């Protein structure tokens, strides 16, 4: 709230808040205009998610996860991934619970956990090489330190990969360490994967829900805003097993009940376009990533030329920079 006000000054170049200033693809914009022209799409749709949208989401993610996803019971559409985080935490977290949050973290995790009456327990990503890090991959969890944070009160751990703000893409081995602890302590995993398509060369986004023993205890969160460069559509989703999603649905029906219809229909149409070309490099899920990779590289270069030390991210669209040279 505070920083956005400052950045609104037109003399300032805003690389602050996470939103693209490039246009979403035209088929996405056109899809919304088309949807809004259909009369009944201006009225209420199904509360837990517009039928064509939950169907499209289930198809895309069935392909990605390699498992059957029921569009009616395993998917909830929310007002942005933010709304999914809120629904998940309100549904499954309460007083007496502890929730592990990896630092640095997208700032809303902490107040949301506190609002649910629970205690946040922090664990840092530590930079290898004494703070001289050129890559997000240098930032790692200490497995012993992580294990120490788990106890019988640990209800959930919040995982964010690709990570905001560092851009770290957790490897399979790193995810396995987290998964093992979740299984050992019967802990849930809230996996914020909004930047799932933004992974750069040499990296692969792995869904922790696909690791053995994890589907039944994981809620995976995604975002239309980040997938299609339409943050202003505020549509996100939670995907998981019915016995967890049903509780998120209860929260949803008691908080805002349903999300906007034309936006959901337009998103469904966009997902179908890209679902059909998931084998094609032109699929927007991959082409956006390529576009952003060259911007990443350019930014890293600019910062280095200015004498600063960027931490080149393996994913996401944020880059953190060591500005000590400016002091």
């Amino acid at each position, binding site marked *: *709230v505070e920083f*956005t006000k400052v950045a609104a000054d037109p003399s300032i170049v805003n690389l602050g808040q996470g*939103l*693209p200033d490039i*246009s*979403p693809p035209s088929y996405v*914009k056109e899809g*919304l*205009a088309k949807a*809004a*022209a259909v*009369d*009944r*799409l*201006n*009225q*209420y*749709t*199904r*509360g837990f998610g517009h039928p064509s949208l939950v169907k499209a989401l289930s198809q895309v993610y069935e392909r990605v996860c390699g498992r059957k996803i029921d569009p009616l019971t395993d998917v909830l559409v929310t*007002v*942005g991934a*933010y*709304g999914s985080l*809120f629904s998940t935490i*309100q*549904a*499954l*977290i*309460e007083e007496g619970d502890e929730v592990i949050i990896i630092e640095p973290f997208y700032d*809303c995790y902490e107040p*949301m956990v506190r*609002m*649910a009456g629970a205690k946040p327990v922090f664990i840092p990503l530590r930079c290898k090489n004494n703070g001289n890090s050129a890559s997000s991959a240098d930032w790692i969890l200490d497995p012993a330190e992580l294990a120490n944070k788990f106890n*019988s009160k640990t209800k959930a751990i919040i995982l964010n990969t690709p990570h905001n703000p560092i851009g770290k893409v957790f490897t399979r081995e790193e995810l396995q360490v987290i998964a093992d602890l979740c299984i050992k302590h*019967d802990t*849930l995993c809230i996996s914020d994967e909004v930047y799932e398509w933004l992974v750069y060369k040499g990296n692969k986004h792995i869904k922790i829900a696909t690791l053995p023993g994890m589907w039944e205890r994981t809620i995976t969160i995604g975002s239309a*805003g980040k997938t299609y*460069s*339409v*943050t*202003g*559509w*505020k*549509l996100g989703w939670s995907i998981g097993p019915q*016995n*967890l999603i049903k*509780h998120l649905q*209860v*929260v949803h*029906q*008691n*908080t*805002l*009940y*349903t*999300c*906007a219809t*034309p*936006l959901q229909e337009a998103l469904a149409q966009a997902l179908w376009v890209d679902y059909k070309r998931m084998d094609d490099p032109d699929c927007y899920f991959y082409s956006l990533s390529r576009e952003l990779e060259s911007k990443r590289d350019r930014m890293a270069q600019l910062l280095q030329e200015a004498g600063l030390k960027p931490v080149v991210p393996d994913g996401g669209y944020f880059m953190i920079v060591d500005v000590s040279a400016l002091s």
Partner: protein
Amino acid sequence: LSFSLQAKMSRPVQARRLEGIDKNIWVEFVKLAATYSTVNLGQGFPDFPPPDFLKEAFVRALSGENHMLHQYTRGFGHPPLVKILAEFFGKLLGRDLDSVTNVMVTVGAYQALFCCFQAFVDEGDEVIIIEPFFDCYEPMVKMAGGTPVFVPLRPKAPKDGKLMSSADWQLDPAELASKFSERTKAIVLNSPNNPLGKVFSRGELELIADLCVKHDVVCISDEVYEWLVYDGKEHIRIASLRGMWDRTVIIGSAGKTFSATGWKVGWVVGPNRLLQHLRTVHQNSVYHCATAAQDAVAQGFQRELELYGKPDSYFIQLPKELQQKRDWLIQSLDAVGMKPIVPEGTYFLVADISKFKSDVPDVPDSDEPYDSRFAKWMVKNKGLAAIPLSAFYSGAHKNNYNHFIRFCFAKEEATLKAANDILQKWKQEKTSP
């Protein structure tokens, strides 16, 4: 397994705040309507489109040069929208409103209600809810840890030969006063009222206002149907009564105002001392609302500000059209023996189905209220969808008025005619040997 792990695994995975709020009538009835109905007068949404000027505003927002309308806007409300809302409601309330501190945009009025209960209600707090009520108030109070306290609108017999009016359903002043205690944190007022269509009179509002002031209670005023008032009635805003501005949150809805329920744009208007807490809830739950729809609604309000009070104003045309539809449906229902309660406002109408009881035999000791079974039978066998009035009562009171169903008449002429045909045929089947 360790003892503590065993204990953990034996507890339910969900949070206790979900207790008792998992059932939802709409999930069931919307499914039934989708499966069986040929004429859907159930869930409250128009089957006619939003006005052209609003649809055009949306298309302009989407296809304009400014593609930034596809990105985040200000979290507490898109600047053009909060500015026009502050101006518009400032005029209506006779107050200078600040768009930043006195207005916030929400995801429909539904989310505005959620923010209010979360912001103001704690465990141990009581919230007064007037029955019948829009069903979400009760679970939202419970989810916030509060205790709902119910007070009924009681029907008085209409004058001889006349149809009952929603005005005949009234609060008993002494009964209402008895519901206020030192634990009362808030009262929810819904005027015009869903489902009855009651438009609270100045006298009735003063009664409520006096008690709010006396007991220092917050008034959550759900005014989503504020423009839908008939027969020359006036919608009076309780916030304009003495002592009330500072303790009232006014809730509004673009969905109901502009016949665009699928846009999910709502708002709250009120004093900063209350709105600051709604902002806290909002920034920790949803944070931003979708940009383009907000922009279009802002344009809609701009037009209405210019046309306010003039015959071309949508806020004058829409109630005029809906009054005709109301009267049409009243005629249809009365002609077949369903007794309509004439609503003073909203696009809902409640009718007494006692004369049709023979079609759906009573089942003694049934858990389900009679009107619910009746409504389900009706949609399955007659293809006509409506909502049982018991849906709008607390658990303990669901059988108090169990022979009424609610119809939505915000429908095209063809839909209302089709409903009439179903009713006529049904009546003929009853009377023919």
